[in-house]
């Protein structure tokens, strides 16, 4: 039963991501930061606005956490070290992560507050942008692996990582992954300076703690997905497989967190236009190139 080790690894990863995020955003490295802030939030009042859609307001953070956890359930940490090895794992990752959007729309609509509402609908637009390219890129990965199972996707990269085999797909996937985690520069739904917190603005206390935990889990999950789909998963010399997975996942997560510091937020208008006018054609091009390479050169 690899349930426990994977969940523990995931939580450890989320913890490290939270530490990293604190380091990146405040410049101070505080290993105990997430625990302290979790405790502090637990001791805070958790306010509920006056006329909310109470169900949505409560369900948003839970759904966000659930969808991130479910997506991580099919991502292998090592050969056989996976919670469920679904035959349609690659598709399942997507299916679970779509509910991130549902969760944010719920939290945006729930409190009947303007900033949150704008944020929620912005993320729905963001999904309309990134979701098609991400799915197409994963289709190209599946073409090479001849399977949708994540373990077989990793096995297919034993000789050559997908990041090198299909670099265009890798770039599109990385961008989409950051958009999916609403990390800067794609943090349109939460946009601190523009919407004063956006969808998370009305959450306080333990509900905010759940949201922050969910966000950290989401970042780890998506980084792990990048590792599995493009960076050869557990493959690597010397170190044991789980260590390679962990190292790659953390490196990807750190890269995603750090990159957003040095660029301004993307405009919503551009975001959509770029995904549709550049992202989708590139993803299609990627499929064709991979298709031709598979027929001619082989996997």
């Amino acid at each position, binding site marked *: 039963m690899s349930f426990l080790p994977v969940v523990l690894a995931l939580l450890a990863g989320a913890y490290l991501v939270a530490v990293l995020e604190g380091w990146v955003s405040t410049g101070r490295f505080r290993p105990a930061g997430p625990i302290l802030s979790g405790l502090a939030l637990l001791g805070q009042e958790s306010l509920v606005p006056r006329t909310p859609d109470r169900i949505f307001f409560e369900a948003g953070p839970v759904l966000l956490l659930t969808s991130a956890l479910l997506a991580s359930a099919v991502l292998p940490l090592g050969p056989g070290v996976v919670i469920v090895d679904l035959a349609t794992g690659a598709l399942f990752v997507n299916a679970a992560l779509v509910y991130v959007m549902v969760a944010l729309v719920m939290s945006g609509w729930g409190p009947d507050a303007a900033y949150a509402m704008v944020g929620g609908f912005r993320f729905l637009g963001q999904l309309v942008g990134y979701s098609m390219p991400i799915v197409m890129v994963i289709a190209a990965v599946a073409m090479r692996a001849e399977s949708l199972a994540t373990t077989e996707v990793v096995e297919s990269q034993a000789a050559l990582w997908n990041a090198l085999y299909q670099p265009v797909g890798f770039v599109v996937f990385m961008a989409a992954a950051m958009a999916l985690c609403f990390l800067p520069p794609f943090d349109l739904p939460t946009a601190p300076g523009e919407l004063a917190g956006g969808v998370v603005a009305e959450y*306080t206390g333990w509900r905010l703690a759940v949201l922050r935990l969910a966000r950290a889990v989401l970042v780890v999950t998506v980084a792990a997905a990048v590792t599995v789909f493009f960076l050869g998963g557990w493959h690597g010399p010397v170190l044991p497989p789980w260590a390679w997975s962990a190292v790659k996942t953390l490196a990807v997560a750190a890269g995603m967190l750090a990159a957003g510091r040095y*660029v301004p937020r993307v405009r919503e208008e551009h975001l959509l236009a770029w995904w549709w006018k550049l992202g989708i054609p590139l993803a299609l091009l990627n499929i064709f190139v991979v298709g031709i390479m598979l027929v001619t050169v082989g996997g």
Partner: protein
Amino acid sequence: MISGPREARPSWLRRLVARAAARELAAFVVPGPEVARARGIDPGAAGLAIADTPRHASVLVVVGELPEGLRRAAAVAYAQMPRPRAVFAVGAENVSPLPGPDVSAALGQEDLEEGVVRLREMFAEGAFHPNAPEFDVPAIRSRTGYVCPMHPEVVREEPGQCPRCGMDLVPREAAAGEHGEGDGERDHEEAPSGEHGHAEHGAHDDMDHGGMGFMSMVEMTRDLPRSSDGLQMEWVEVPFGPLFPGLPAGLALTFTLDGDTVAEAEAERGIEGWAPLEGLSGPAETFADRLSGLDPLSPVAYRLLASRALENAAGVAPDERTGLARVGALERERAASHLNWLAGFGRLLGYSWLEERAGELQLALLWSAGPEEVARLAGEAGELARRVEWTPLLRRRLGGIGTLPAGAEASGPVARAGGSAADARRDEEAYRRLGFEPVVLRGNDALSRLRVRLAEIEQSLDLVSRAGSVSTPVVAPGGGSSGTGAATVETPRGLATLNLILEGGAVVAFEIGTPSARHLKLVKPVSEQREVADALVGIASLDLSPWEVVR
């Protein structure tokens, strides 16, 4: 005990939580981080995380004396913070209606840091307390009004049904001072309700349409204004200020949003209770001090303005050395002010590196001892400017945003980014001697304004090192003289003018013209029909200082 503890008896778990909370203080800074930086303090460096919304803060940090309007806004923000919460006053005596400050400190980084330590102790001790006083002041009292979901203009005191469509009225919050404008509205006779009550009325009826079971959407939407794509949605008024993280504090901005697009913008208001002009008149000796307190974001410029006007009235001219020292002081402030703007702009753009770096440089510049140190900072500022210039996505983000209509009245960097060489410094002897030429760019958008300011930071720092002094300008002695005086100063935001009448050593009347008062009129053209983020970027690129908007 802190002023906003949670109501519970301390237990081991609560003590643990309180200790954690004391380590994790998040601050909502009032008026705003930019005012804190301009006053030379940095709450972030003191260990307080800066929160974007009062909901995510546990400490309300008040920096400097606040005018009444902002104190009221601060009280609302404080009321919306989750407990445990506390008030930390930095250089502020009067914080009412907020509860008396838990910790007070003088304006200064060391005092601030020492205050944070005390605050942490108080939090660890008193985050939970068996009797927590309720925070209830008139400023935060709201009464519940009842509005029709379809007809926002229908506002009633009592629950009931809308006279126009018969829908149940829904409760909404209204501030205590506000009066429902629909209170006196005439009541319509309710038409007998029926399953298909609308069928007889058709589209010809006017507002007397009373079918309850079913109502006509056609009528509901007919009078609404149309968006650019021809769809008629409902508009909502949303406040984006006075305490909004991405904009200068005190700017009471109200957007009427059509979805996420700004249909109308309203910002023609100064800060309530700030700088009554009568209070500024008085003895000439201290007039410059008083005027320099007008705008916390550029005190030196206003001190200089007052000095010049007084000298002009008294008929004395400053010597060359004073002139140069004034150039140094004003240019240092210009560079610091632009860096401060840059930090705030970085916050709005979500460009955290820029926010931090510009803030650091601004504080270093403010604390700098003399021209040598300024010269060292000039190198770092140049480095910053180059990094910003090469930032990916920045051009796409700013280009074409915030363009001004032709003939818009502007001055300062806003005008110079639009291709005009308007700069009062060109006419000044001291500047001419230093070989000053204004930075002029074409573009007339947020990007060109950013570039002008970046170039001006370098230029100003260069001028400082050539002027060789950064001492604050000497106040001219009033000396019991009389006369009228006029002066102009190119402040960091643009041209400020002052005309005053001096009688027997006292300023009896004066008239002041400030750049932000003029630029406030530009808020509408740069923001309307723009997406929210673009509108905010356009407004922020004007670098308004609501403090200067005197009435």
